[in-house]
């Protein structure tokens, strides 16, 4: 065994995050780590990275027990590398310098040899088939490209154990496949890989063994060849009989018609006419998102899906074209106008653009409705708190109270807080960009249900995801985006992933990928 942890305990404020938890990793194996919200995955990772010390328990490395707390420096020295969910890059530094960060730069007479650094970084990148401009500041890169830079950094030095926390959250299928390739190659060279993901299909297809966590305890350790999705979900939830995660879609055509009668809010379809962004990323997009249905937008990374939503919402400059809400064109759009017009935007970058990290759950939930909870210049804290509390119960946000700092919540609960914020504004149009990114299976399902319910109420829901299965699971119609424009619009009935992918690659890759 490369690493063997036994009896790990860790408490926060008297609550167990890990309880007698055990984990064993062999050199050269890809090991999946799955579990619901707050099951202890992040805590375990941080203990292995030396961020937290375990309260008790033992960690053995190559059979030898490590004495005392595993410190961050020691963890690095052992060759443990961690890719956290959120990127850990210096935005203004180039890819090359970010890759070298934390290692001594090559120098000659005290002068940095940039060429040597660049060559080494580029060689590594080429080895793994990563095509990213490493000379540009990383703040100019897109999320998946940043992930690639982080992977390069992790494997540049000696890497014995690579831990990846939700690495494919914002990656398209093609990039995911590339990443898996990289991981398999690394594992073949003897590196152990601990792969943490909510995407069970990926875990099942990639790993050799899987550890399932539940409430901080090891619920099961399985050989992947014996595991199925249902089995994993059963172990994660503690109910082996729980229904499979993916329900057949389009079950209730009749139900939808009756739903129209109970429609509470004014139906306000969203229409986009020949929209182009000033920076030229979005090109001449026309799209209608009818009220009462979920319009999925699928596209590979860089296809302009995020940018399209940003244009609609008013946080990206528009060169030409028009956004029409309920037959009324919106002039000079801005996020504040969008909110007034009943739009809600769930953005891809939860930590950077959605949450106030120092703020409490309450602050974050009422952020978009401060005006709504004010009368005659007074902010009605009591009224806002009552509404927030109701929302917290409605969405089942697990927390110690509304005053808990939002950063202490798990990813799924953070995302629910973002949804609570949107719900409090009572939107009629939802723009969701990767809304289930880095969210556990149960929360993901709840988010899907919520959006379906919102659609039933008569909202127009636009749902962007790089997870094709997810789109096919919940969208009524699928718009396929490629190279900044919408290349096809399909009814989601017996649509196969292959057809959709064919359309994506059709324009970009000459169909060779299909």
């Amino acid at each position, binding site marked *: 065994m490369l690493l063997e942890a036994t009896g790990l305990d860790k408490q926060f404020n008297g609550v167990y995050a890990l309880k007698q938890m055990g984990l064993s990793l062999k050199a050269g194996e890809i090991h999946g780590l799955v579990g619901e919200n707050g099951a202890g995955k992040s805590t375990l990772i941080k203990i292995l990275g030396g961020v937290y010390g375990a309260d008790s328990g033992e960690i053995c490395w190559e059979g030898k027990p490590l004495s005392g707390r595993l410190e961050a420096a020691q963890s690095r020295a052992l060759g443990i590398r961690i890719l956290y969910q959120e990127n850990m890059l210096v935005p203004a530094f180039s890819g090359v310098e970010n890759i070298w960060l934390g290692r001594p730069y090559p120098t000659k007479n005290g002068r940095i040899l940039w060429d040597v650094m660049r060559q080494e970084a580029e060689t590594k990148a080429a080895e793994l088939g990563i095509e990213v401009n490493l000379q540009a500041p990383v703040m100019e890169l897109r999320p998946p490209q940043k992930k690639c830079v982080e992977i390069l950094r992790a494997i540049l030095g000696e890497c014995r154990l690579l831990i990846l926390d939700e690495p494919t959250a914002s990656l398209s299928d093609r990039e995911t496949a590339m990443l898996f390739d990289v991981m398999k190659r690394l594992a073949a060279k003897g590196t152990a890989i601990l792969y943490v993901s909510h995407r069970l299909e990926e875990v099942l297809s990639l790993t050799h063994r899987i550890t399932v966590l539940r409430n901080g305890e090891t619920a099961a350790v399985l050989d992947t060849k014996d595991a199925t999705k249902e089995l994993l979900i059963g172990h994660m939830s503690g109910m082996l009989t729980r229904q499979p995660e993916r329900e057949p879609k389009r079950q209730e055509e009749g139900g939808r018609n009756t739903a129209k009668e109970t429609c509470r809010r004014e139906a306000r379809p969203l229409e986009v006419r020949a929209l182009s962004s000033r920076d030229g990323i979005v090109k001449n997009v026309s799209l209608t998102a009818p009220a009462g249905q979920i319009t999925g937008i699928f596209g590979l990374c860089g296809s302009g899906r995020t940018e399209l939503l940003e244009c609609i919402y008013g946080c990206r400059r528009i060169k030409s074209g028009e956004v029409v809400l309920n037959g009324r064109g919106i002039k000079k759009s801005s*996020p504040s106008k*969008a909110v007034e017009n009943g739009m809600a935007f769930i953005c891809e970058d939860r930590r950077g*653009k959605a949450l*106030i990290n*120092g703020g409490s759950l309450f602050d*974050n939930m009422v*952020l*978009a409705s401060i*005006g709504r*909870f004010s009368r005659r210049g007074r902010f009605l804290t009591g009224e806002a708190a009552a509404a927030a509390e109701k929302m917290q119960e409605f969405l089942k946000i697990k927390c110690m109270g509304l005053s808990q700092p939002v950063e202490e919540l798990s990813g799924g609960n953070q995302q629910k807080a973002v949804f609570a914020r949107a719900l409090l504004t009572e939107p009629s149009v939802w723009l969701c960009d990767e809304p289930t990114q880095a969210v556990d299976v149960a929360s993901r399902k709840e988010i899907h249900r919520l959006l379906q319910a919102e659609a039933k109420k008569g909202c127009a829901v636009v749902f962007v995801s790089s997870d094709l299965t997810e789109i096919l699971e919940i969208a009524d119609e699928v718009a396929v985006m490629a190279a900044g424009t919408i290349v096809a619009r399909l009814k989601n009935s017996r649509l196969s992933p292959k057809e959709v992918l064919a359309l994506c690659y059709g324009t970009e890759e000459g169909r060779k990928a299909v």
Partner: protein
Amino acid sequence: MRGRSLKNYGTIAAFFAILAVFGCLRPASFLTMKNFLNLTRQMAPLALVALGATFVMTINEFDLSVGSSVSLGGVLAALLSIRGVPVAACFLAAVAACLLVGWVNGFLVARFKILSFITTLGLGTVLDGVIYGLTGGTTVFNGIPKAFTLPGSLRIAGIPFITLAAAGLYLAAYAFMGHTPAGRRLYAVGGNVEAARIAGIRIFSCRLLAFSLCAAVAGLAGALVASRVGSANTTAGQGYFLQAYAAVFIGCTVSKSGVPCVGGTLIGAAVLAVLANGLTILLIPSFLQNILTGGIIILAVIVQKIGAKE
């Protein structure tokens, strides 16, 4: 709901400890009503400038021109009073002029997205030049009418008017930051600009508001100082600038999440004022006073950082 931890009360405890030490050492002169009222009067201008800085620091920006605004407020009010303008109008004009300065600061920061450090440093330097031009570099005192010194010396039921004015503004600011939508928005912008923008908050107006309020309050403080001492110095504000930020930083240690808050700033200003007052009563030389005060500021922030790790 979770309560505040001990670290939040550390600063307050330290404040009372300082009071106790001075009280024990010089009970006859320190622990008197007269000294207390005197202290609040001395402290009021600093407290006001610090209050202004709190607005700007709440949205995560800096206003380096706040000292210049203090000077401008004093000089303008004094010069106008010499020309026979009624006292109330002098004060109003000084505050209005400074409000405009703040508005320009906010506009430059919001419109051109320049770092507030740079913008306000630039505008502050411009202001210093303007003030120098107005005064010729001298202290304005010749011909200041008696009426002008009234707000600075007036006592209502024995309490200095300056103290009352500062107390009133603190109450207003407390209500504003905690209980009005505009105040909540300022906190949101400070928490995460991008998140606030996406949530539909108009960042532009928040910035204008914070900078305008900051400079206006600083201008008022300047005018009050001029009224109290009966003269306006070209560089009167420089002394307040760093002290005000020190007060805000000490105040941050009082709030739960380490963000600026009105109550905290008041405590910060009180700590600094009591130190200055007590050390003077103890006849400690001023160079030692500086060393002690600086040390205490750093200590307060270290204590908070250590507390935050728990």
